[in-house]
């Protein structure tokens, strides 16, 4: 506990944060106790001789032996039979399927909206070794869809949070926490330790990187994506099927890559796709059923429609999995995926544009000053109408960028009104969420009759940070 809280000089925010931190720690300790109790309960002489190693890896069990004491030489232990009884009752799955599952290892890349149900289901159903990789922290605005995380873990590692939740559901499986971003530099090392890989990431460069890595290491890849009210799902590089690059040899233009943090996502949509990813991972790991290889599933939540279509096969020209491909592990490690896709390996960072000269820009603090001095002006908010409804600076006028061109007369009229009240020439300012669209608008306005229009640098995010701390951010 820091000195500020000890000596009573802390704000209530600090105290709340400290309580949250301690609650999180308490939960982790409780999870550990639970885990130890479960271990104690099933402790036998046999288990003692199979003490699992503590390194962050999923070692392959030697041939004809089983891991972790989950499985006895001939079959399932009594407590396992009880735990997984509803699986064992399935004629198509049965003891064989469960034994395969218990011997399998799956890596889940990303502990977000997709990764949440994937990790929870794979842990609860008894995947022998489950690895989770992510370098992100839990944020409050994640919780509506990333159902594996709880409030106590806000501000903490997603991997720690996800692993604790999985342990709480099933303390008998091995969980490996990879608290780092999966990158070309570490991917071969991490992925090589698993049988099946689940892509539950949120960005384009990671998708290419994970697919390439799986091709190089010969791992099947369960790929899911969700945005807005739609989801997509397929299995790559399995049973002779295509890899991600066979389908998308050239990355899309950056402008076509929408992100959940810009476009929004209905919480249950990644949940649906994540559940289906868990299902495909189980099918691939146990060789039960017909995996979604060579086919892709499209989910449209708004119309409650699922479409499954037949995809092209593996491309003989594919630069990674094609007949004459010369893409080596060395090439992979040196490949710049961010540069290849022209987009960052994270959904968090957003590009900062510099489109207009300094003279056509104003800081949010300076704008606040002239606002307080009641300088006659018009503030145009160029965000889409549904953004404007979330929160807006009082007095601002909403003219979305997409219809700005046809609304110049509205701006003229507003300026005239603002000028009349004070008898002075009114100035024109433009704001948006982060300060990119406002520059696009100013660029247009400057060359279409409003040469004095200025954009507010950093948009409403900067307003919330530097001027009005109570202004809601989203």
């Amino acid at each position: 506990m820091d000195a500020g809280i000890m000596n009573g000089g802390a704000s209530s925010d600090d105290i709340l944060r400290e309580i949250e931190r301690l609650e999180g720690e308490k939960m982790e300790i409780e999870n550990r106790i639970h885990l130890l109790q479960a271990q104690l309960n099933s402790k036998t002489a046999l288990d003692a001789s199979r003490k699992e190693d503590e390194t962050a890896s999923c070692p392959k069990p030697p041939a004809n032996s089983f891991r972790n004491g989950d499985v006895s030489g001939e079959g399932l232990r009594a407590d396992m039979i009880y735990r997984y009884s509803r699986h064992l009752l399935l004629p198509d799955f049965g003891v064989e399927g469960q034994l395969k599952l218990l011997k399998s290892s799956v890596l889940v890349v990303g502990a977000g909206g997709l990764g949440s149900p994937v990790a929870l289901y794979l842990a609860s159903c008894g995947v022998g070794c489950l690895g989770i990789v992510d370098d992100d922290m839990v944020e409050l605005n994640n919780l509506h869809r990333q159902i594996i995380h709880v409030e106590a873990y806000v501000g903490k590692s997603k991997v720690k949070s996800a692993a604790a939740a999985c342990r709480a559901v099933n303390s008998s499986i091995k969980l490996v926490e990879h608290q780092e971003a999966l990158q070309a530099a570490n991917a071969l090392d991490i992925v090589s330790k698993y049988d099946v890989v689940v892509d539950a990431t949120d960005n384009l460069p990671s998708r290419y990187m994970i697919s390439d890595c799986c091709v190089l290491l010969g791992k099947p890849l369960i790929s899911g994506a969700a945005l807005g009210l739609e989801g997509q799902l397929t299995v790559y590089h399995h049973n002779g099927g295509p890899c991600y690059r066979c389908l998308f040899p050239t990355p899309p233009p950056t402008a076509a890559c929408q992100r959940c943090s810009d476009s929004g996502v209905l919480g249950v949509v990644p949940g649906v796709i994540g559940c289906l990813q868990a299902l495909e991972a189980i099918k691939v790991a146990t060789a039960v059923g017909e995996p979604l290889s060579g086919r892709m599933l499209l989910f449209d939540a708004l119309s409650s429609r699922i479409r499954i279509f037949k995809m092209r096969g593996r491309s003989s020209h594919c630069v990674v999995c094609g007949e004459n491909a010369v893409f080596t592990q060395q090439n992979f490690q040196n490949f710049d995926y961010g540069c290849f896709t022209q987009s960052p390996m994270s959904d968090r960072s957003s590009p900062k544009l510099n489109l207009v000269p300094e003279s056509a820009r104003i800081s949010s603090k300076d704008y606040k000053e002239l606002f307080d001095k009641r300088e006659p002006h018009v503030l145009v908010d160029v965000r889409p109408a549904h953004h404007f409804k979330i929160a807006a600076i009082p007095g601002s006028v909403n003219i979305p960028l997409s219809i700005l061109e046809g609304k110049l007369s509205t701006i003229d009229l507003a300026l005239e009104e603002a000028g009349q009240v004070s008898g002075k020439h009114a100035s024109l300012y433009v704001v948006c969420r982060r300060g990119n669209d406002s520059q696009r608008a100013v660029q247009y306005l400057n060359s279409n009759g409003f040469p004095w229009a200025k954009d507010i640098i950093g948009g409403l995010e900067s307003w919330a940070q530097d001027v009005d701390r109570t202004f809601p951010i989203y």
Partner: protein
Amino acid sequence: MRLTLEFGGGLDLLCNSVKIHHVDVDPKTGEDKLSMRDLLSWIKSNLIKERPEMFVKGDSVRPGVLVLINDCDWELCGSLDAVLEEKDMVVFISTLHGG
């Protein structure tokens, strides 16, 4: 020729946010068949209301767009040269990356 066109994965935003379009497209004058190449050019001039570069590149779709003809990847049916028939269903899907 009556066709059903569907736009998904955000491509609907380029056509007034309407996902499903029932359209009537005739082959070019002097031709008796309608190819996917002809359909793309028809869509570009008749349905796409903004940012055409988000839909087409050259005479094909931009990278990252999957095209399905009657629930089959168009790469399996001739891509641009695929010949369309009455009541065909053509779907254009932009690949998603979010999660």
